[in-house]
């Protein structure tokens, strides 16, 4: 979607200020207008519309899940998504990793002075649309404006609350030898989409971020009675970090096979060019599931019938107890360690 689509479908509320000023966070009339005309208008729902200092809502029966995440991404708009949709999907996905049905979100905005009002409005519209698609309501929020140069345009924090309607214990400690390891789709798209449009690293690519909500697929697995032992979304650090964290927490050895792990050809090519491993690259709409072996085939069927994880595959299994390690069988059939990345992913010289 480009800017013209946005303004046509979603006109920015009339504002005499084309940019965010310090006064928009100052507690006076300007701030009031920003809250009413931008956030209040876009996110309107009965709980938010009461305009209390805190949101009040009924708690459904059962356990609750709660999570928080802050979103900083440059550029704010990237192929396949933007900071707004990512801030909804990311937190919804964190809730989904407990098997929770997401209900409510809070959102905090830290806005750098001078951010074009239209940019803010586009982000807010994107959040509204993403929240609607995920079936969650944004019921409370906060806005701060910081001096020019003290922020990177816009930072967003979202906290999510969801309800757990199942009786399963989904946690790394529940992973056991024999479990099937399943990824919900092809890997590395989000990280490479961002890298392709970063200043100084521009290369021609049509890679779009995989940013998407995954809770529907998880809820369907649970509804079908699939025995899920652990779920982990594959954000920063990619599959390699997630598997290592789980191997360590569960005290198990996990063995996966390179040739079973789906990576799109253009992502593979971009990674090769920059000297990166797609298994270390970030995703925003992918997760790994540890599933009781007896349910693996059925789980795969359910996942593949779903729009987001349509390309889910089984990539390996948990093989031993008490030896925290992740191994990967190379294309040539030789096994080696699959390690966590050392730090930030840096393109290689040659």
């Amino acid at each position, binding site marked *: 979607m480009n800017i013209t689509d946005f303004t046509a479908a979603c006109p920015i509320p009339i504002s005499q200020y084309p940019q965010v000023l310090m006064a928009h966070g100052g507690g006076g009339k300007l701030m009031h207008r920003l809250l009413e005309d931008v956030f209040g208008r876009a996110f309107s729902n009965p709980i938010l519309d009461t305009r209390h200092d805190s949101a009040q809502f009924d708690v459904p029966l059962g356990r609750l899940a709660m999570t928080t995440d802050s979103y900083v991404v440059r550029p704010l708009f990237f192929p396949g998504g933007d900071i707004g949709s990512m801030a909804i999907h990311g937190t919804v996905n964190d809730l989904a990793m407990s098997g929770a049905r997401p209900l409510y979100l809070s959102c905090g905005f830290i806005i750098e002075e001078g951010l074009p009002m239209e940019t803010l409005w586009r982000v807010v519209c994107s959040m509204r649309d993403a929240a609607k698609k995920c079936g969650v309501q944004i019921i409370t929020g906060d806005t701060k404006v910081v001096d020019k140069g003290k922020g990177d345009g816009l930072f967003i924090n979202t906290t999510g609350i969801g309800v757990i309607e199942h009786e399963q214990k989904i946690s790394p400690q529940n992973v056991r030898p024999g479990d099937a390891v399943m990824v919900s789709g092809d890997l590395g798209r989000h990280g490479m989409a961002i890298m392709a449009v970063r200043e100084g690293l521009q290369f021609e690519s049509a890679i779009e971020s995989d940013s998407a909500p995954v809770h529907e697929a998880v809820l369907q697995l649970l509804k079908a009675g699939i025995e899920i032992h652990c779920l982990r979304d594959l954000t920063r650090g990619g599959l390699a970090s997630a598997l290592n964290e789980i191997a360590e927490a569960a005290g198990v050895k996990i063995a996966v096979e390179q040739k079973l792990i789906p990576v799109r050809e253009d992502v593979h090519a971009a990674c090769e060019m920059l000297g990166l491993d797609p298994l270390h690259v970030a995703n925003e709409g992918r997760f790994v599931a540890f599933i009781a072996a007896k349910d693996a085939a059925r789980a795969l069927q359910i996942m593949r019938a779903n729009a987001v994880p349509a390309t889910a595959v089984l990539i390996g299994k948990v093989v031993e107890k008490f030896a925290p390690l992740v191994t990967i069988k190379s294309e040539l059939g030789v096994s080696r360690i699959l390690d966590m990345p050392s730090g930030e992913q840096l393109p*290689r*010289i*040659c």
Partner: protein
Amino acid sequence: MKFLDEYRDADLAQKFAQEIRRLTTKPWTIMEVCGGQTHAIVKFGIDELLPKQIELIHGPGCPVCVTPLEVIDKALEIAAKPDVIFTSFGDMLRVPGSTTDLLSVKAKGGDVRIVYSPLDAVKLAEENPAKEVVFFGVGFETTAPATAMAVFQAAKKGLKNFSMLVSHVLVPPAIEALMSSPNCRVQAFLAAGHVCTVMGYEEYFQLVKKYRVPIVVTGFEPLDILHGILMVVQQLESGRAEVKNQYSRSVSRAGNQPAQALMKKVFRVVPRKWRGVGEIPQSGLGLAGEYAAFDAEKRFGLADRHVDEPAECIAGLILQGLKKPHECPVFGAKCTPEHPLGATMVSSEGACAAYYRYRRYNAQ
């Protein structure tokens, strides 16, 4: 992936491995020069497909690894200056100097930026006339043409705010230095395909003649490397020593002549210290007199310095094939990719880092 998966085919790899096993009757020690090849060998487990008699020694061909501490310290000093934009290839950023690294300088407020091409640094200099833009020119003959082009363009545009910290190194003098060492165990070389794409392989004929070692110009994919090893073993087993080109889809005998001409114009050959190895005569590139104005060391008036490597580090022995990474007492304990003590652990292409990343459990 087209032009890639074909070179990772497991069945063909097994066929190459079988042929190598069939031919091998004696123990042979082969050095792959380039860090990219080391990385592929350990990542794909190529060495595990080979007969026990064939030992691969991981050569000094990782530009990040062999950049001396003194040069890294100079980079850190320049990058910390106000009004400087310091640009570098990505993997130089976490290489520690004697006290800190470029990522930490950035965290303290230094303007350190990753570029993918040295020409991006020239562009930055044009866009920021009030800043001094410095590019960290490291690498072998592979990256040298691009840095030469950056200096050439900056001169043509008359840029006064662009300079370069140059620490380029050359492969053939390093092979010569290894071969002339009394401890040398290397009996054949896989030469680095990308270096030869630029330089061709004319330079290797005299080395083959002088030291009677087979040299096979080799690519980087598993089948390339296995094919290169097969071509080397064929020579070793029949007592021949020749220059052969496995990577003919990229390398010609004369190489990329416009690139060589540009390098010759912008650079001159100088002695260079290699981290973990020591100084090798005529093994580096520095800016030629005509382009001396772009020398960052002169522009910022940096003094020469000498920094000692940690005594425990055995990188020099590893680069000569006298020790394997896991035979080092500090490997994986005091020395890790996060806290490297020496050359071969600092970049993912260094032998120690490759063993740490892919082989740790074998060593345990």
